[in-house]
C-alpha cells in the first residue's frame, strides 16, 4: 500500500483511465504544459498529446458546453473548472444544458462527462476563490456529485465517475491536495451512493464530507478522550446520497450532527436533516444540529476567515450540545 498525496492519486487515476479508454479527453484552463494550477494533470499532455489534453482560453461557458458537446458525440470527457467559484460563469451550461440534456430529449443521449472542480476556504483567497457551492448543484436535478476526502476514495470514485454515462460533478477541496494516504496497487472502483463509516461510535453520528471529514475525525478523537464515542460518516457522494447508512447510524446513536463548509443557510445539511427527521423522527433524542459556514462571503483576513469557516472546536461544541453537556 504505497502512500500518495491526493493530487498524485488523482493524476494516477486520470492517466490510467486515459490509457484504458483512448477516447477520454481532458479539457480546461492551464491543464496542458502547466499541468493544472494544482499540478493534477502534470505530464499528461506529454503522454497523450494536445487533442486529448486540451488547454483552453479563459472561457468557462465554452469549456463546459464544448465538453458536453464532445460527450454527447462519443468523447468521454473530464472538464476542469479551476475554482468552483467560476462555475457561475458557466451556470447556464451546467444547469440548463448538461443537467437537462438527457431528460429533455426523453432519455436518448448519454453524457459521459465529469466536471472536476475545486472548492473551499482556509487559505486567505477571499470571497471569489473560497466558496463551497455544492448546494447549488444539489438542488438541480440531473447531476451526480462526488466529494471525496482521502486519496483512496478519490481514486476509486474518480474512476467510477469517469466510467459513468451521466454528468458528474467531482469536487475536490484545496486543502486536501497535499494530504497523504495509502492506496492499493491494483485497480479498484468505489460505487456511488456508498457512504463510508470512517470511525465507529455509539453516542452521536457526525455526517460530513470532503475536507470537513478530517476535522470531524480530529474532533471525534478529542471527544473520545472525554468518553464520548462519535461515529463519523463520510458521505463521499452527495448524489446519490446513501440515506440507508445514515439512518442505520441514526437509529443506533439517536443523535446527529451534520458538518459542511458551505453556508449553513440552505446548505446540504438542511436537506439531510429533513430527510432524517422525515424518516426517523421517533429515533431522535435531540434536534439534529447543523454546522456550516456563517452566512456571509468568505472574508480575507485570517481572524475573520477563521470565524466564518467551521472549526474542530465547533464540532466538539456541537456534539456536546447534542448530548446536553453544554
Amino acid at each position, binding site marked *: 500500500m504505497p502512500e500518495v498525496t491526493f493530487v498524485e492519486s488523482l493524476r494516477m487515476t486520470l492517466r490510467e483511465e486515459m490509457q484504458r479508454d483512448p477516447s477520454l479527453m481532458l479539457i480546461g484552463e492551464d491543464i496542458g504544459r502547466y499541468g493544472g494550477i494544482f499540478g493534477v494533470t502534470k505530464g499528461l499532455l506529454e503522454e497523450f498529446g494536445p487533442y486529448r489534453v486540451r488547454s483552453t482560453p479563459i*472561457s468557462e461557458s465554452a469549456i463546459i458546453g464544448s465538453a458536453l458537446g464532445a460527450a454527447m458525440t462519443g468523447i468521454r*470527457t473530464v472538464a476542469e473548472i479551476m475554482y468552483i467559484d467560476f462555475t457561475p460563469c458557466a451556470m447556464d451550461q451546467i444547469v440548463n444544458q448538461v443537467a437537462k440534456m438527457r431528460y429533455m430529449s426523453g432519455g*436518448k443521449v448519454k453524457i459521459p462527462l465529469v466536471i472536476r472542480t475545486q472548492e473551499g476556504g482556509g487559505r486567505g483567497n477571499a470571497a471569489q476563490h473560497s466558496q463551497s457551492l455544492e448546494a447549488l448543484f444539489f438542488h438541480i436535478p440531473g447531476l451526480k456529485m462526488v466529494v471525496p476526502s482521502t486519496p483512496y476514495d478519490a481514486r476509486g470514485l474518480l474512476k467510477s465517475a469517469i466510467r459513468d454515462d451521466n454528468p458528474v460533478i467531482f469536487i475536490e477541496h484545496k486543502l486536501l491536495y497535499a494530504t497523504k494516504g495509502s492506496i492499493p496497487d491494483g485497480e479498484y472502483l468505489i460505487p456511488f451512493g456508498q457512504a463510508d463509516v470512517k470511525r465507529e461510535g455509539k453516542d452521536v453520528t457526525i455526517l460530513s464530507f470532503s475536507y470537513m471529514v478530517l476535522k470531524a475525525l480530529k474532533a471525534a478523537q478529542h471527544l473520545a478522550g472525554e468518553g464520548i464515542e462519535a461515529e463519523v460518516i463520510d458521505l463521499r457522494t452527495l448524489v446519490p446520497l446513501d440515506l440507508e447508512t445514515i439512518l442505520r447510524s441514526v437509529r443506533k446513536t439517536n443523535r446527529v450532527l451534520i458538518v459542511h463548509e458551505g453556508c449553513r443557510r440552505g446548505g446540504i445539511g438542511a436537506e439531510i436533516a429533513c430527510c432524517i427527521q422525515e424518516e426517523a423522527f421517533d429515533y431522535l433524542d435531540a434536534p439534529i444540529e447543523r454546522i456550516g459556514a456563517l452566512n456571509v462571503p468568505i472574508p480575507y483576513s485570517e481572524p475573520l476567515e477563521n470565524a466564518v469557516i467551521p472549526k474542530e472546536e465547533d464540532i466538539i461544541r456541537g456534539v456536546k450540545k447534542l448530548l446536553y453537556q453544554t
Partner: protein
Amino acid sequence: MTELIDQTLYLKMYEQMLTIRSFEEKAIELFEHNLIRGNIHPCIGQEAVSVGVCSVLRKEDYMLNTHRGHGNCIAKGADLKRMMAELLGRSTGYCKGKGGSMHIADFEGGNLGANGIVGGGLPIAVGAGISIQNRGTDQVVACFFGDGAVNQGTFHESLNLAAIWKLPVIFICENNQYALSTPIREAISISKISDRALAYGIPGVTLDGNDVRAVYTQMKGAVERARSGKGPTLLDCLTYRFYGHFTGDPGRGMTYRSKEEMEEWWGRCPIKRFRESLFREGILSEGKEKEIQIRVKTSIEEAVRFALESPFPDPEEAIQDLFY
C-alpha cells in the same frame, strides 16, 4: 448528368421548403385549437436557410438548433410524425413528451437538440467539433442561432475556441432581423454580423438567406473548408420571420414591425422566389407541383393523425430518463 442531379436536388429542396411551411401552418392551427401547449416559435419565411444549409449535410453530420427550430429539424431529415407527436406532448414524440417544441432532439439523425436558451447551443457545437477532430472523422457541425444570440457571451467564447482549434463547425446565423422585439440594427452597431468573424480571424459571409441556392452554395464552400480541416466559417443569412416571435406575440409581431417592411419581405418570400425560378428553368411543372403538394399535404395529415392517436405519456414517466 450534373444537371439531372441538380434537378432532383432542387425538387427535393422545394418539397422540403413546402413541408416546413405547411408544418408550421398546421402547428399554429393546432396551437390555436389548444392542442399544443406552451408556445411555438414558427419559422415561416426562413425555409431557405434551413433547407439550403441542411441539403449540404450528410446524415452523420451534426446540427445544433434553436427555439425556432422546426424547419431545421425537418431539413435535417426528422420524422414529421414524431415531431408532431412531441409538439402535442405525446409519448411517441422525439422526446417522449418531455421536450416539446423548443427541445426537439434526434440524435440518430445528427440533431443534437434545440435550445431554449438563446446562445445555448454554440458551446455544444464546439464540443461536437472537438469530438470529430479527436475521432478523426470528416463530419461537420452546423450550428444554427438567431441574430439575438450574437450578443451573448457564448457566441464570443465559442467562435474563438473553434477558430484557435480549427474545428469543423459552421456557424449559421439565421438573421431574421429581430431578437423577439429588438431589431438587429439597435442591437449591434456594425452593419454586418459577418464582420464579427474578423475578431476571430475566420471567414465571414453575409448573404441573401431567402435565396436557397445562395445559401446552398455558401454552405457548400464552408463545409468543404471544414471537412478539409481548415476550420470554422460564419454565415450570416439575411432572412425574415413572417409570423411573430411566437404564438403569444401580440398582433403576430406587428407591434414592433411595420406593414411596409413586412410587405417588402413578402416580396422576397423564399418559397415564391424558388418556385418562380424553378418554373422559369423548366424544372418544375404544374403537374409536378401538384404531386408535391399532395405528398406534402398527406405527410402533414398523417403526422397530425399519428400524433393525435398517440397516447399521452403515463405521469409516472415524469421521473424517468434523468440518469442513464
